[in-house]
């Protein structure tokens, strides 16, 4: 991670004007992504993880959106770029796959033609070569008999197959950054494993940087190198995958880790949960946004903590919690495992 990062996001903020007032969906997010690295953005619905990803692709631009901050893809700045500039980069250097493979393909065009269209939008290649290239891509993502399936329509494919087509399309111009927004959430577990293997292969063979947006910590443990945990529009903790799982510093992360139902553990008497629910976008609590659900809150939490290294060792392991490093290590153990104590029960 010593070389200049592939993608650098600085203080990204995204607000939407709605009937009930302005909603600040992303509130000062800064990230870096290197070549050959998978960065996972983890959070629950409404945490701003997808809006962050979509804003990098210029997909949140509209009359009712206010964007601020900067995002550099090598030399190109994405947030302030003109639509034309963005169109040149998007699909060619930065590509995205979406959660829902059922609605992300155009149902009235043949699958192959949709990939060819994407290739020819960016590269001056003749039809025959574009077709060959598209067929090779379909093979590469594991579609059997790719030559025959080239002329199929999306409805003739299963969900897993459509997601492969989406990946083939995203890869068609050899992007250096791939953004995957919940790429396996709609798929069965056995198919999920296959898709994750493809993404790993892409990272290892092509050296692409991958931003993986997900709510599934199992997927994170499987594939991510670094992780950013988002809550109510802000990153609350950021570090390597090892740090996040074995030395988590933010109480929200403890709660997430504690509340997963695991296939590899005996069933506890009760599944630990996080009390309450995420705050409404219109009415976020002042100071630390997690405060109302946090059993460890104290007076200082009324003041918003910055995202920084808080004396816990590694300089790149950042969090937003006022507790001291010692307190964090003491309090995150619940019954011998990492978790969030019940609200009111904590001292």
């Amino acid at each position, binding site marked *: 991670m010593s070389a200049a990062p592939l993608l650098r996001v600085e203080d990204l903020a995204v607000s939407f004007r709605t009937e009930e007032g302005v909603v600040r969906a992303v509130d000062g997010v800064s990230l870096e992504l290197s070549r050959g690295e998978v960065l996972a953005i983890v959070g*629950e619905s409404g945490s701003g993880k997808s809006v962050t990803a979509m804003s990098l692709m210029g997909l949140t631009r509209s009359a009712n959106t206010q964007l601020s901050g900067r995002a550099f893809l090598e030399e190109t700045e994405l947030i302030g770029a003109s639509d034309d500039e963005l169109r040149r980069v998007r699909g060619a250097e930065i590509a995205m796959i979406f959660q829902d493979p059922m609605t992300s393909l155009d149902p009235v065009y043949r699958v192959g033609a949709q990939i060819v269209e994407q290739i020819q939008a960016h590269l001056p290649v003749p039809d025959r070569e574009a077709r060959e290239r598209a067929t090779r891509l379909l093979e590469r993502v594991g579609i059997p008999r790719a030559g025959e399936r080239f002329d199929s329509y999306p409805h003739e494919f299963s969900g897993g197959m459509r997601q492969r087509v989406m990946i083939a399309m995203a890869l068609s111009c050899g992007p250096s950054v791939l953004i995957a927004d919940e790429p396996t959430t709609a798929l069965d577990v*056995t198919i999920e*494993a296959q898709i994750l293997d493809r993404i790993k292969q892409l990272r290892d063979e092509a050296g692409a940087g991958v931003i993986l947006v997900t709510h599934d910590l199992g997927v994170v443990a*499987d594939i991510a190198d670094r992780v950013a945990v988002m809550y109510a529009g802000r990153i609350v903790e950021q570090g390597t995958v090892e740090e996040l799982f074995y030395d988590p510093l933010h109480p929200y992360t403890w709660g997430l880790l504690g*509340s997963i139902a695991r*296939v*590899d553990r005996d069933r506890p008497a*009760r*599944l630990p*949960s996080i009390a309450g629910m995420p705050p409404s976008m219109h009415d976020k609590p002042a100071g630390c946004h997690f405060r109302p659900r946090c059993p460890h809150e104290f007076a200082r939490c009324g003041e918003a903590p910055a995202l920084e290294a808080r004396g816990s060792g590694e300089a790149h392991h950042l969090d937003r919690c006022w507790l001291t490093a010692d307190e964090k290590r003491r309090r995150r153990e619940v019954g011998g495992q990492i978790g969030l104590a019940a609200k009111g029960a904590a001292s």
Partner: protein
Amino acid sequence: MSAQPATALAGAGSNGVPLLEASHLELHFPVRKGLLFAHEVARVHAVDDVTFAVRGGETLGLVGESGCGKTTLARCVLRLIEPTGGEVRFSGEDISHAGRRALAPLRRELQMVFQDPFASLNPRKRIDQILGAPLRLHGADRATARSRASELLSRVGLREEHAARFPHEFSGGQRQRIGIARALALEPRLIVLDEPVSALDVSIRAQIVNLLDDLQEELGLAYVFVAHDLSVVRHVSDRIAVMYLGKLMEVSPAEELYRRPIHPYTSALLSAVPIPDPRENRARERIVLQGEPPSPIDPPSGCRFHTRCPRATEVCREVEPPLAEYVNGHLAACHHPLSVSADEVRGARRSAASPLSSGAELPEPPTDH
């Protein structure tokens, strides 16, 4: 959840008749072609000769990938659809082909909670109307329905003042609580939960699972818990049934299924779930199944899993394996079972839950280890 370990196929308890029994249940959907003279050209084998039982107060987890027939099976036992073969019995009474009128009193006892908390509540009705509807249908007056509605709300962890609100004012987790309250309104004995937490965030999921747990304990409910993977069901089930392409592959006491899966499909499903622990995840060997489930219109011969199974041999292509019953009432339909010793294989017997079309031969005991 009930404490005593379940017996056999069926879970026939000491009190004799199980609450719900399905025997050799079959549901084939016709595929028709032609407008005026529509004729059947093929059949989707959604549920194919499935036998199981659920006792009062017990939770049966029903697991499988999309298209395996788990939801169809759940709807079939609730008699939301009529089976094309086999029998469903509730409290010993055959309801397989009961008419609308005959089913009406049973609807009190059999309820369902749906996967999508956004689509399963009428957006134009207030919560007290939604919760009161089943009560009114079964003859309660308006005042009784209203007071029962507020009682139900507090039972599922919502407040009384929520009764006057509309569904859009609630989050996904709260809506799922309302769906559960509606299912509880008529004091059922069995609730079929179709992926009740799949649409919810992790931190909310745990809250709903705990709520279901509490309700079962207080009210002695039986659950059929349908899920597409094996992680959440571990926390709720007493027994778990694994389905693939319309057939039961394995039925086992819950904990045992995780400690020693006998069917290679179960083992593949377990191995496919990524473990939320990077070191353990890296250390374990994962079986990544190749390909996708074949079409249920033309399912493979013999064992339906043989086209994707790493252990498949000639016999798997030719003979459908019967459900062999091992110790602890652990059933598995496989010619090449995993995690069982030669003695256990010799001690196994053909379960009465086996599909009628399955072979008579039980697995050969492994020659060594």
